[in-house]
């Protein structure tokens, strides 16, 4: 009896320990970024490092929106950079649209391929092949196309690419959730007289909305943090936040402070989106209630 209690106790301790270690590994860089974002330039890479800045400053944040301000210090370093506003607006427009488009197309394609084997059994696999090459392999041919179409440095170019490159994820993730909805539920609705579209929107969609939320968040993060394509296809007008981050590099080195500040600002929408969606992620998928 005693030894069993002891084992349960050590089990719990080990579980917690493992959890804490994993969390630390993931959270430490975040905390570090947060810390740097409030540090003046002399403290960015000071040794020994300090978690709490000696002199807390908000100028890293101010300088994002007003380069050259405050005068001297950080302001002087990044006076040549564009205000972050444009990148922010671009990201805020491009990413949600591309994510929504990818999700809608992916979901409908997933429904068609799981329920009707539309396009044949291997169509979903073909879609997956778009992820089997590094995106850079597509970049050069796409550059040629987009130049011909006059889409270089436009939001539309990014929307098209982000939608296309994430459809494979949307399709495959939602497929799993759709397969989890027993066919008989749809058949019951059809017997009741509902049309296919009505079944899709009033029965299937509400049942997989948790899965769609999870997929949406995943795709959103992918698009929000995409750097390579944005770097290649934009120059001034359509730059996104990840590209903007790379601009805080001077002849003498990296401007860690503004980079960190932008990192913090850029993660706010993701955290907010994750928080909103969390409720749907947690609410279980209730199909397992009655076994097939």
């Amino acid at each position, binding site marked *: 009896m005693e030894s069993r209690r002891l084992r349960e106790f050590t089990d719990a301790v080990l579980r917690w320990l493992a959890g804490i270690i994993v969390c630390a590994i993931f959270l430490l860089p975040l905390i570090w970024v947060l810390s740097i974002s409030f540090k003046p330039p002399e403290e960015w890479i000071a040794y020994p490092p300090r978690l709490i800045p000696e002199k807390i400053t908000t100028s890293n944040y101010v300088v994002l929106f007003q380069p050259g301000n405050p005068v001297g210090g950080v302001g002087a370093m990044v006076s040549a950079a564009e205000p972050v506003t444009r990148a922010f607006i671009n990201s805020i427009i491009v990413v949600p649209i591309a994510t929504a488009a990818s999700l809608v197309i992916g979901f409908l394609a997933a429904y068609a391929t799981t329920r009707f084997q539309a396009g044949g059994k291997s169509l979903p696999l073909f879609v997956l092949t778009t992820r089997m090459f590094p995106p850079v392999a597509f970049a050069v041919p796409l550059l040629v196309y987009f130049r011909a179409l006059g889409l270089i440095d436009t939001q539309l170019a990014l929307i098209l690419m982000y939608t296309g490159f994430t459809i494979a994820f949307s399709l495959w993730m939602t497929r799993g959730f759709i397969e989890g909805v027993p066919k008989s*539920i749809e058949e*019951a*609705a059809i*017997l009741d*007289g509902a049309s296919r579209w*009505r079944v899709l929107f009033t029965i299937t969609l509400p049942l997989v909305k948790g899965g769609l939320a999870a997929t949406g968040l995943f795709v959103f993060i992918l698009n929000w943090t995409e750097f390579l394509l944005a770097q290649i296809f934009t120059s001034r007008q359509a730059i996104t936040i990840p590209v903007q981050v790379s601009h805080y590099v001077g002849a003498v080195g990296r401007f860690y402070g503004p980079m960190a500040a932008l990192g913090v600002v850029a993660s706010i929408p993701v955290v907010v989106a994750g928080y909103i969606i969390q409720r749907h992620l947690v609410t279980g998928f*209730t199909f397992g209630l*009655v076994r097939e």
Partner: protein
Amino acid sequence: MANPEASIIRLEGLRKEFDGVLAVQGLDLRVREGEFLCFLGPSGCGKTTTLRMIAGLETPTAGEIYLREKKITRLPPQERNVGFMFQNYALFWHMSVFDNLAFGLRVRRTAPGQIDRRVREVADMLELAQVLDVRAAKLDLSAMQRVAMARTLAVDPDVLLLDEPLNNFRPGLRERMRGELKRWQHQLGRTMVYVTHDQEEAMTLGDRILVMNEGRSEQLGAPRYIYEHPANLFVAGFIGRPAMNFLEVEFKREGEAGLLQRDGLRLRLPRDLTAALESLPSSRLVLGLRPQHLRIAENGTAREGGVFRAVVDLVLPLARKQVVDLKLGDELIKMVLPADRPLLVDDAVSVAIDADRIHLFDRDTGRAIR
């Protein structure tokens, strides 16, 4: 239910192939108005496929389906006015009980007031009035079953098709829900076609049973009749528990009397049966013996019938009876005895067979002779 002979559903040469595999091969059937008909058979016998074809969820490869003598073979499911209760109930988990029941009526653009009235009506009938606002996913199994039933009833279908609706229940509850079903059927007076692989369920629920095997109809009839007069070896072996014993025997004539013979067994036949067997082309038969019809022979042998000596191989005691495996040569024969008859493994016993309780089948065709 005016005319019990009137058929509400008629199947004519119904066939279904899935990728070259025959699921249902040429089924003819008349379902009577108001009856409770069970499709009974092992899994994969085509019973669910047949039910789904009646509902319109599968399209037949060949053959026709009639509902009240109207051809509905190619009609989409929603235009047939049949209710279907799925094995997993297929409730709309994300909706309240009320919305589940109202779904079909809303699709049909029924007036809201009328929807409300009808939903409350079926909810009262199936004791769901208390849970109308509860989400379907939160219900217990018995309530789920009632919601599934109520949902099919809400749109007032001509026929109810039920696909193994009791499969998910643990044994105790299963028997209770079986009783419920039987009661509903009486209350509702609906024609019900019920698919099951559980013979006990079919026996208790069905007015008639259609025994199916490998996509074919083996026998159609009242439960008692099928048990007492199985049409062939398959039905004989499938219905009844423990299963009927089969022994290969030869028919022989010895003077006036007919005899069934094999190693260790001689069975004298009554005159009428002898005459019937004589007119057959083959004397190679299968003797069918229900375990319940065998008894331990006390002194004296019967005039008709026979006695064989066997060794007890295994005794399985149950509450009020025991199932005994006997060894007759290489064959194992099961018999059911009252629990108060003490028997031990390796006991030698004499077992009596009553000639008027035997079943006989043609060994080549499998068809029942008697």
